[in-house]
């Protein structure tokens, strides 16, 4: 072997030019010891063994980003009721905006990969996940699916990078669960559209450069792209929210708002076009809330292991407490399997809206219950903002309502299994 000569002094021609002793050791910001509290995951049933290497890598990117960049800012953002806008360009750079779409700078990830990203984001805060859901599933998706080439070229790259923010206006003051009753009208006049009406509870409304707005026309419900600054279009923020405080929620007002013909989404026909967008977003929500549940569970588990009551025994050593932890880990594990299965169905083109209803409804209810149980297990500390639980709990109350309430999804599933629509 030619490596028998283990040292040859000849190449050691380097010189030591200087020594330096700074007053203080250099600040090493990224020293690993400082990387506190990396999330190790919650995986009781080894569900990770069902994930591919690429899926795990995507989740790792999302997990690290959430630990490093999102968690440090969400508590303050929530308390201030301020949207953490500086995250937007980072989310864009990582490819998280419209991650499961193809083309125009989008990464073309699978629905499972997309779901894993939503899970990690919502582990930090449902409001951050909502931002990403709306941008990708409710704004970019309809433009890609129903838009003209010009609309796609104009908007998708900017929405993907986070340079532009979008919002989705479906809900109205008098039409929430029943959006097909909407009153917002678009009338054709001199080759343009005249839009009148009001949308409310619109995520990202006042910060959006572009609104996807659904309105009634003489030919049925149609979708329109309304650009910020269009005459007759204004927004106002909804204040006083005790939930989703780091997400912007607004009302959109249209008063003789003139929309050029080329801003109509040419292929969006009927309420079902809007509902198809909701299916995209609901799938992401079904994954996202697992993240919130994991954070609540893990917080309660570690808390009850350290906090001692009665004979110096950790709370986690008491039977009633264990039963609650066990309920949570069991429900989280089932929710993971449900999400993964529906995600795989969606990837193979077999998921329909009624499948996604089960995912959304079950997992949101599960997460909400985990938040309530965890709140309980932390005792008085459970109400403090030092712990994430009360924030998740309040956020999840919105998640239960938006994108189809728990009731409405029960009715979708009920109709599927009985054939009888029971909405009215």
């Amino acid at each position, binding site marked *: *072997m030619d*490596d028998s000569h*283990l*040292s*040859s002094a*000849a*190449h*050691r*021609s*380097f*010189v*030591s*030019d*200087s*020594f*330096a*002793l*700074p007053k*203080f*050791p*250099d600040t*090493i*910001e*990224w*020293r*690993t*010891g*400082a990387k506190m509290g*990396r*999330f*190790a*995951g919650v*995986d009781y049933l*080894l569900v*990770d063994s069902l994930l591919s*290497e*690429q899926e*795990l*890598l*995507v989740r*790792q*990117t999302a997990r*690290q*980003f959430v630990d490093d960049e999102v968690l440090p800012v969400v508590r303050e953002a929530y308390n201030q009721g301020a949207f953490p806008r500086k995250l937007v360009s980072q989310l864009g*750079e*990582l*490819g*998280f905006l419209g*991650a499961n779409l193809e083309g125009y*700078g989008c*990464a*073309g*990830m699978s629905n499972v*990969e997309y779901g894993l990203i939503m899970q990690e984001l919502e582990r930090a805060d449902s409001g951050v996940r909502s931002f990403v859901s709306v941008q990708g599933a409710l704004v970019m998706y309809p433009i890609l699916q129903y838009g003209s080439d010009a609309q796609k070229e104009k908007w998708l790259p900017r929405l993907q990078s986070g340079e532009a923010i979008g919002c989705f206006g479906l809900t109205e003051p008098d039409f929430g669960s029943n959006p097909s009753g909407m009153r917002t009208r678009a009338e054709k006049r001199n080759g343009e559209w005249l839009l009148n009406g009001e949308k409310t509870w619109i995520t990202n409304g006042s910060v959006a450069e572009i609104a996807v707005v659904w309105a009634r026309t003489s030919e049925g419900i149609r979708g329109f792209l309304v650009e910020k600054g269009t005459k007759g279009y204004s927004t106002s923020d909804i204040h006083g929210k005790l939930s989703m405080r780091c997400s912007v929620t607004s009302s959109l007002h249209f008063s003789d708002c003139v929309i050029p013909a080329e801003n109509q989404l040419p292929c969006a026909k009927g309420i079902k076009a809007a509902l198809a967008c909701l299916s995209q977003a609901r799938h992401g929500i079904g994954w996202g809330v697992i993240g919130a549940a994991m954070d609540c569970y893990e917080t309660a588990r570690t808390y009850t292991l350290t906090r001692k009551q009665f004979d110096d025994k950790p709370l986690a050593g008491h039977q009633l407490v264990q039963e609650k932890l066990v309920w949570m880990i069991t429900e989280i594990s089932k929710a993971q399997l449900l999400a993964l299965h529906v995600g795989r169905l969606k990837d193979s083109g077999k998921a329909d809206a009624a499948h996604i209803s089960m995912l959304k409804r079950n997992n949101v209810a599960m997460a909400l219950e985990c938040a309530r149980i965890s709140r309980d297990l932390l005792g008085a500390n459970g109400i403090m903002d030092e712990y994430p639980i009360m924030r998740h709990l309040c956020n999840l109350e919105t998640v239960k309502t938006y994108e189809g309430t728990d009731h409405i999804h029960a009715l979708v599933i009920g109709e599927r299994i009985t054939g009888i629509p029971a909405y009215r």
Partner: protein
Amino acid sequence: MKIIVSVKQVPARDSNLRVASGGKWLDDSDLSYEINEPDAFALEEALQLKDAQGGEVVVVCAGPERAGSTIREALAKGADRGIHLVLPEDAVLDALSTARLLRHAVKNEAPDLILTGLQSDDLGYGQTGVVLAELLGYAHATIIMQVEVLDGALRVKRELEDGWFQYVTLPMPAVLAIQSGIKKLRYATLMGIKRAKMKPVETILAASLGLELGRAAIERVYLPARSKQSQILTGAPEQVAAQLVEKLKFEARVL
């Protein structure tokens, strides 16, 4: 500039680490793996040098089949191609054997620079990079915190003890063992992950190389015994406070 980064896959630091029955290694049934942390910083340094100077970054990894995911992670972050020296799942090599394998992979590459992590989080030899340099006859330096490329040479900052640093100039080609925590690590973006699928990874079965690979024999793996110690400091308040600060800094290392 052609840079080779050698990376190792190790059990994730946050894994639930349990000693396997038999007491010779870890129970790997629910172990997850990740890139060895100092190696992640070596990769980051290489990618930043490439961003600044142009060139190519090649990742080399000796490890079992599963270590392929660490190579792909490096490709997703921006490395151009990979070389995987495939070892059996349970191989635990000594530093010389790993260095021999790595040398085999890099000897036809004629790199300007080879970066390794300072040490591995699992075995912690801290020797592989240095031994590799000796095998190749390259200059080398360890515990590197900064790399500056001068005309055909490198000026590096080494971390010594007690807050001392040393600046050293050395010729290329060279092997540098990189310290953890020196830069902010980039993420593998989704586009990067997608592009990585197109990048070439050459796999070489380590067993096919006919190299003499010595296996380190591990006698016993065990958790350090925990002991609680109390110390009562006595003296004047100022002295006690000074002693306490001293202990918190240098013994408990919490300050």
